[in-house]
């Protein structure tokens, strides 16, 4: 490789360095030092990522080989980075949004003790490192290294307040559910290796390698990869960990559980789009799962009262939209939505953190209200986030969501209908959240009201930047129908072939108009319904079904967890203790018994021994006689 990318190795190495410094020096570093180091290393990565992005934009791409990670019996896996359009884009998201969240954290986590504060930044840096490996890796194995690495960091950060058992339960659940998906991913890799003998993108993701695979192979491999993606990106059936993951500090939720890690599944599929495009069954499965997840999570979000839980279900739902896009072959739209979602969802999570900060830890929106007049920056930026996610024209979410919906319309009208309805629910629950939280009268305690304040600059400035990005972020993908050139699609075209648009401009415009009108209607409905909000009792039926999240957790408990526990204890008490060990001991007892019966043989009388000896020899002779 020429020296175009001679700084690229620093992109993941800087956060790793930050992790080591903060991790090893956690006892001696002051809070401002560890915050500074933690943020500075990510800023460094961000600057190099921008430089890299510019290089790639000028047409330089390449694979940087460091050393061979594994070389064994015909399989060669390099430790290498692939710098191209897709990875350079993700680099910007991860390090850019990541840096803002690091800065935000220095203020948000300020009440932590010094060494815990350093530990927090160490974990956060480690996460950025792993996530960078995930997107930079030049083959599926390095991707998997990062893939499991981000799972580890997610586990560590969800369980950051480890004294609370519920939190560590949530951390455990996240890791285990991810591992279920990871097994699928691993099996996909084995399958791929067995057919193509490689895991390098450069060798696997091309037409020649595709020719080695039968339809059955491709379907199997892609389905298994998708299983991996459902774990990491919280899709049905492995989505229930993500809402629980809100136990972690709020900036963590913004970075890991909204903007970056959970989009790893989308990255994986976008990266391997050549495989997925040839697997029709897989595409159908992804479409249906994505849509179902989007719908299910949005319906649950309608009835949640915990500000972070609403955002979490909203994330699950938006991820579902991205998968819907992937399933309909609309890879660019999925990546586009990853980008815009990273902005507006990170913004809203950080905004919710600002609210929680002001409310002294309170997360129930029923106890909030009227916060707008106390914290204007948070309120206005949050509103921008709501407008963006709802898909109001002019805001970033409009462009990416509209592209997904248009793709769905071209695919199947029913799917489009459900997706549109989900988009309406999205607008509705987001504005429910906004209206209940920021407008009306304050419903909390007097003490809380007294404490209400806008957050410090370290928190509001990231909010403002993200709010700006949530508005302008969409302009890199203005469709032709609106007179744009869809810069993003052009940029990504070497990795993702541009899809042919089957829709006429007229239809597209009509769809945009329809969804915009309906979304505005949904927002108005939310305004009418919640403007005079009073904490109400749940009124049973459907609403308690939604409040209880479709009882999915309960189902898993009954169908999977309990039977496994039951089986384990049965194995222990019956199979292990009685049958297997019992028979081992039984053999022992038998020998014991037998030797007691034969004790008379050792009588101590020489005569008897001689007799036995002679008899024995006679027996041997007889045997030999017959044998020969």
């Amino acid at each position, binding site marked *: 490789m020429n020296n175009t990318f001679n700084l690229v190795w620093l992109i993941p190495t800087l956060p790793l360095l930050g992790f080591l410094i903060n991790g090893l020096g956690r006892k001696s570093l002051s809070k401002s030092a560890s915050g500074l180091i933690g943020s500075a290393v990510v800023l460094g990565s961000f600057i190099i990522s921008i430089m890299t992005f510019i290089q790639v934009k000028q047409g330089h791409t390449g694979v940087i080989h460091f050393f061979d990670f594994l070389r064994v019996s015909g399989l060669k896996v390099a430790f290498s980075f692939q710098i191209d359009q897709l990875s350079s884009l993700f680099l910007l998201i991860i390090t850019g949004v990541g840096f803002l969240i690091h800065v935000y954290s220095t203020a948000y986590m300020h009440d932590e003790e010094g060494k815990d504060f350093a530990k927090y930044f160490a974990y956060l840096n480690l996460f950025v490192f792993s996530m960078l490996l995930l997107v930079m890796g030049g083959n599926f194995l390095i991707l998997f290294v990062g893939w499991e690495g981000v799972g580890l960091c997610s*586990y560590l950060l969800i369980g950051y307040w480890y*004294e609370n058992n519920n939190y560590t339960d949530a951390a455990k659940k996240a890791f285990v559910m991810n591992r279920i998906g990871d097994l699928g991913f691993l099996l996909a890799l*084995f399958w791929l290796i067995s057919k193509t003998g490689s895991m390098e993108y450069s060798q696997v993701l091309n037409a020649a390698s595709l020719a080695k695979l039968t339809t059955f192979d491709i379907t199997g491999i892609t389905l298994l990869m998708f299983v991996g993606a459902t774990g990491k990106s919280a899709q049905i059936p492995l989505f229930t960990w993500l809402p629980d993951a809100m136990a972690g500090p709020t900036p963590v939720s913004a970075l890991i559980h909204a903007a970056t890690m959970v989009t790893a599944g989308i990255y994986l599929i976008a990266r391997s789009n050549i495989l997925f495009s040839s697997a029709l069954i897989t595409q159908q499965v992804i479409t249906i799962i994505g849509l179902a997840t989007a719908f299910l999570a949005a319906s649950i979000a309608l009835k949640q009262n915990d500000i972070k839980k609403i955002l979490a279900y909203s994330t699950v739902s938006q991820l579902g939209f991205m998968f819907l896009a992937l399933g309909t072959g609309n890879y660019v739209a999925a990546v586009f939505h990853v980008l815009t979602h990273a902005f507006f969802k990170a913004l809203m999570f950080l905004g919710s953190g600002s609210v929680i900060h002001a409310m002294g830890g309170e997360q129930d929106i029923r106890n909030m209200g009227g916060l707008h007049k106390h914290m204007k920056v948070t309120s206005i930026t949050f509103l921008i986030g709501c407008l963006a996610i709802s898909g109001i024209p002019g805001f970033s979410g409009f462009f990416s969501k509209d592209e997904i919906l248009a793709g769905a319309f071209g695919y199947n009208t029913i799917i489009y209908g459900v997706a549109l309805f989900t988009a309406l629910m999205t607008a509705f629950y987001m504005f429910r959240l906004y209206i209940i939280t920021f407008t009306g009268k304050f419903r909390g305690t007097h003490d809380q009201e007294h404490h209400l304040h806008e957050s410090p600059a370290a928190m509001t400035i990231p909010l403002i930047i993200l709010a700006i990005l949530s508005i302008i972020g969409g302009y890199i993908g203005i469709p032709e129908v609106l007179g744009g050139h869809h810069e993003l699609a052009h940029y990504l075209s070497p990795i993702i072939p541009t899809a042919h648009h089957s829709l006429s401009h007229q239809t597209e415009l009509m769809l945009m108009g329809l969804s915009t009108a309906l979304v505005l209607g949904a927002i108005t409905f939310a305004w009418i319904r919640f403007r005079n909000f009073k904490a109400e009792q749940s009124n049973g039926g459907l609403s308690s079904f939604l409040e209880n999240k479709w009882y999915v957790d309960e189902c898993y408990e009954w169908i999977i967890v309990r039977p496994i526990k039951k089986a384990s204890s049965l194995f222990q008490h019956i199979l292990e203790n009685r049958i297997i060990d019992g028979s081992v001991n039984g053999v022992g007892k038998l020998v014991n018994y037998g030797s007691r019966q034969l004790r008379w043989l050792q009588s101590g009388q020489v005569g008897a021994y001689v007799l036995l000896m002679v008899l024995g020899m006679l027996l041997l002779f007889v045997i030999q006689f017959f044998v020969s």
Partner: protein
Amino acid sequence: MGTYFSFPDLFIWLPILAGLLCFIPALRNHGKNLSLLFSLIILGVSIASLFFTNDGKYLSFNHVSYIWLKYLGANYYIGLDGVGRSLTLLTAIVFPLIIGSGYKKEVSSSHSFYGLLMLSQAGLMGVFMAMDALSFYFFWELALVPVYFLASKWGGEKAIASTFKFFVYTFAGSLLMLVGIIYVYLHTGGRTFEDGTIAPHSFSLSAFYQASLSVVEQTWLFIVFFLAFAIKMPIFPFHTWQPDAYDQSATPVTMVMSAIMVKMGLLGVFRWLIPMFGQADHLLYHIATVLSVIGIVYASFLAMVQDNVKKLVAYSSIAHIGLMSAALFSMKKMGVQGVFLQMFNHGINIVGMWIVLDIIERKTGIKKISELGGLAIKAPALTIFLVIISFANIALPLTNAFPGEFMLLNGLYQYKPWLAVLAGLGVIFSAVYTLNMIQKVFYGTVKESTSEVSDIEINEKIVLSVIVLIIFVAGVYPQPLIDLTKASADQLFTIIK
């Protein structure tokens, strides 16, 4: 020939010398220091052995052969091949770690404790290097006897019973193996020694590989040897001696058993069983593979319900060994190389695990998961080590166990995908019970049992740091360890073809 110096000799005689010195009355009080010193020297020798893999012009570094029982055709023949080098390295690394981690702990009649410990090292080293069936059997038993005494004399309250079971069980296996060895021996060709003596049969490894055995005989002998090795590893359903033995033995002894002794069974399989009985009914290989995989799932299930943290680790180890054994019997090159790699890394990780658990047990007197909690508050350094070692134990990428596990599962997948799926359940379950253990023991609030706990001592810190260093180095750059044993795998596949 002029063999004045060779690594195999040093690996045998240095530990024996150390062991004997410990028993000398004048040195009674120095057992610990003596054995630490010697084990470090042996480690140095072992590292040196990695760099002198070719014999010199006048010196044979890697093989030692003396005529032993001439008329029986038996040589005392030990040598280092790739796997031998890796396993002796493991043994050489583990012993100083064991001694170092217990350095501040008082052991009753320490001279005989450390003496026996060093003698067991000699036996283990011998097993890994033996190239002659009689030498092999000799060292096999030599390793067992000191460990038996160590386990029964310095164990917990139920040690006598559990050790007796361990001894009788594995000894029964050994006897089966002896019968098998004699049977094969009687079917070997003659051997001519350098001095012209001709023996009718031979105990040499190559003669055993070429023994004239019919397919039926091979099948029977496969079963006999399989039982011996299956008990040793152990694989399901021959494993019930293990949890009790691990639980009841003194921790250093448990470490020797779990990190090194279990590898004897695996070594037996690929150095003796498979090359000798390549013609045996293939169904047997299949059954052995399936049994191993069942063992993975079964042991993982059991690990999830253990309240005794030592038994949890014991069952988790059974699952790990099961994966190695499955990959071995399924006979795919990727898997076999994975076994060679993983034997080393499993040994390192499980020693780390025991060290941490031993520290906890010593500080609290408790090994029940349900009675512990909040250690992260009281002993943060210990917690960090444990978390790293645990994640290595569940084969997180960039830790040492990942490349091996990847290769093992991949090999198994090449053999039968559905077996890889089943074995893969172990990957999930291992996360469940390991994280459970971390949560219950280290997280949460401080309990009465843990309220007085202090963080770790300097010697423990050093030892654990070494382990963590190995975990990451071997995890990020595993290739040297893979290359070390590559020739052995190639050789194995040439023999059976």
